[in-house]
């Protein structure tokens, strides 16, 4: 407590620079991250945790891809479609990726309109995002069905290493589950926005907390994260 005497003598504390400044800001009064609400902080930390989950999945996939002695099937052939007589490698995945990335765009617009409290536009954009998300899941279901018809199973497949099917179903399944949950929550949020629950701060059914437009942004954080993860899955699973 030696410094107290110094401070009480009237000399103002010096602003700290560099790392010390960062540490001082983070450890400052009441909140480490100023202007970050509880919900947003929670979502960021949850996403960090989720990042570890997806990283583990992807690293595990890469490990088994190296450990197996059987050749790995060629993804651009496996995921090729013949449309109108033209053989197009990875076409479905390309469309799915496009749809999902576009949904990030509509989500960002929804967040923007949410902060302007434009109820109708926000709800419509959320709906659009949900529809794009659902389309993604639908295409994924199509892809799963196609592969299953071709004989791909989690434990084996006609073209090579068993781990191909295992990793494929596990990783896309886990990601697809994330998208599905996202779609459900998008619909719920869209409904709330539409009914004006955020305008009149209606209380949540379970949490009894007052609603507000920030939920749209938190929803958006999750949605962008799910899209980002897809980019990695796309790169590491389909392109490699």
């Amino acid at each position, binding site marked *: 407590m030696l410094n107290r005497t110094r401070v009480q003598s009237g000399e103002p504390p010096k602003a700290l620079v560099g790392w010390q400044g960062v540490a001082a800001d983070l450890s400052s*009064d*009441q909140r480490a*991250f100023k202007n970050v609400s509880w919900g947003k*902080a*929670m979502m960021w*930390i949850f996403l*960090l*945790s989720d990042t570890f989950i997806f990283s583990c999945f992807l690293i595990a996939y890469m490990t088994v891809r190296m450990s197996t002695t059987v050749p790995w099937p060629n993804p651009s052939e496996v995921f090729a479609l013949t449309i109108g007589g033209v053989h197009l490698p990875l076409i479905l995945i390309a469309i799915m990726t496009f749809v999902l990335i576009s949904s990030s765009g509509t989500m960002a617009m929804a967040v923007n309109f949410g902060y302007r409290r434009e109820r109708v536009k926000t709800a419509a954009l959320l709906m659009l995002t949900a529809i794009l998300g659902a389309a993604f899941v639908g295409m994924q279901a199509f892809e799963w069905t196609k592969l299953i018809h071709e004989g791909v199973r989690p*434990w084996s497949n006609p073209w090579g290493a068993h*781990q191909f099917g295992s990793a494929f179903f596990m990783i896309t399944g886990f990601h697809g589950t994330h998208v599905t949950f996202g779609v459900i929550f998008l619909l719920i949020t869209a409904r709330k926005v539409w009914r004006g629950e955020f305008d009149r701060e209606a209380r949540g059914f379970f949490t009894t907390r007052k609603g507000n437009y920030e939920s749209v942004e938190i929803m958006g954080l999750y949605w962008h994260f799910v899209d980002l993860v897809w980019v990695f899955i796309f790169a590491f699973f389909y392109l490699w």
Partner: protein
Amino acid sequence: MVDVPLDTFGGLPPPEVPDVDLYHPKSWVTKYVFSQDAKVIAIQYSATAMSIGLLALVLSWLMRLQLGFPSIFSFIDATAYYQFVTMHGMMMVVYVLTALFLGGFGNYLIPLMVGARDMVFPYANMLSYWLYLLAVVILLASFFVPGGPTGAGWTLYPPQAILSGTPGRDWGIMLMLISLIIFIIGFTMGGLNYVVTVLQARARGMTLMRMPLTVWGIFTASFMALLAFPALLVGAVMMLFDRLLGTSFFMPSLVEMGEHLSYGGGSPILFQHLFWFFGHPEVYIVALPAFGIVSDLISVHARKNIFGYRMMVWAILAIGALSFVVWAHHMYVSGMNPYFGFFFATSTLIIAVPTAIKIYNWVLTLWRGNIRLTLPMLFALAFIVTFINGGLTGLFLGNVVVDVPLSDTMFVVAHFHMVMGVAPVLAIFGAIYHWYPKVTGRMLDETLGRIHFWITFLGAYLIFFPMHYLGLMGVPRRYHEMGEMAFVPQSAQTLNAFITVMALIVGTAQMVFFFNVVWSYFKGKPAGHNPWEAASLEWQTPETPPPHGNWGRELPVVYRWAYDYSVPGAASDFVPQNQPVASRPASDEDR
């Protein structure tokens, strides 16, 4: 300690965090059963964890009976022994210690110590407990399914964990994995709460560098758990698929009973990496809260500020960060590139530096303190001694050349029981003796407490100290009986019998504790608001036990760190955190 009083310049800061919108329960059920109050959730977590702890204790007795008096208990055959080892280990580490420190102490202490009314998301907090309970029920269910619980060892290494030679291969392993998955989901809900509450919901004046070290310990541990459990989750999901769907993530090509299995091409080592990426941080997930708690107990009961507070905080953070880059020291015998062995040995030994700093600081805090040998203090001192003991053997095992011969011997069992079994349990007992008066308004009985302390402390050494010696002689770990091992002298058996008797005595002595907890709740000496004359915020609540919302009308305002003990010139030998800085001596109205 650079502690700038906030009100010196420009008065009190305005509240940045609006007062929470508390949920007010209306019925008995929403108040005490499906409660959203962190304090009730804390007690639910603690009670459940302690019940599981008792069960795990009984399992350890059964193992010890078999080891001490082989072939007397016919019902403990090799299968049962493996199942007991596995369930004992997994229960103690995950379902007892993690749940008790984070779910129990975290829930009770974080809001009170940082001056919040509750956790930030009470509803998710409630779900966290019920998922934990579900995980526990599923785990216990595995005792009743055909084939019994899994006997794969708490590390659950594949391929053996899911091959037919291992007990519980049919149901036990699946229930174990499912239970772990649910535990992790439940923990995530709680863990997000603990972390966000500390980061974003502190009282006015409560800067991070004024928080008690208990909060720092629990906070860092929760954050680590959020990053470490994902690896276990992924490992559990993939093993479940290997078992249920016949995928080969972890399964190499295998011949079982002369039959070539359909598995092939997987990587068993991958599971070990995933498991220990979780498993090693897990050690610190139970150690860091204990570190924090012990720092506070020592400071309060030695009437001195903690020595080197800042260093203590940085040491906690450094240990937390480093513990993510040491995991493969559990895998030396699995074989690895020598450069990796070198890297992991080095990083393991580096962790000893911040840990040693903490120990020196505890000792320096005690140095010339006005030590009150209360029960919490006794347990805190016992923790330090035990942790040093376990930590030193950890340095042995961290070195590849020393670890390889000692690995899978009783030496390892002695090491990890000292460091993550006995030491955290001592910290938990100390914490319970310390905070019980806040939770119930009554003191725990002193005499019973002292009996409990001495039997537990000395007894733990009588149980685990000889195991070092057994291990050095080569007695293997996870063996149901020693059989024909010519290199182990006959006297080892005598020692084993001795250990068993001690284990029975120490285990039974815990009944004294549980009796004390129940008896004192009704008949204990009334404690008043602040029996230990502690400065930290949880002792300054307007009511004891603190009611829903903790602080009554006004949220507290914090003016100083949590360690103003024996301040020269102050009126009493402690200054509560919420007492304004003033030149006048503390008077009663400040309290």
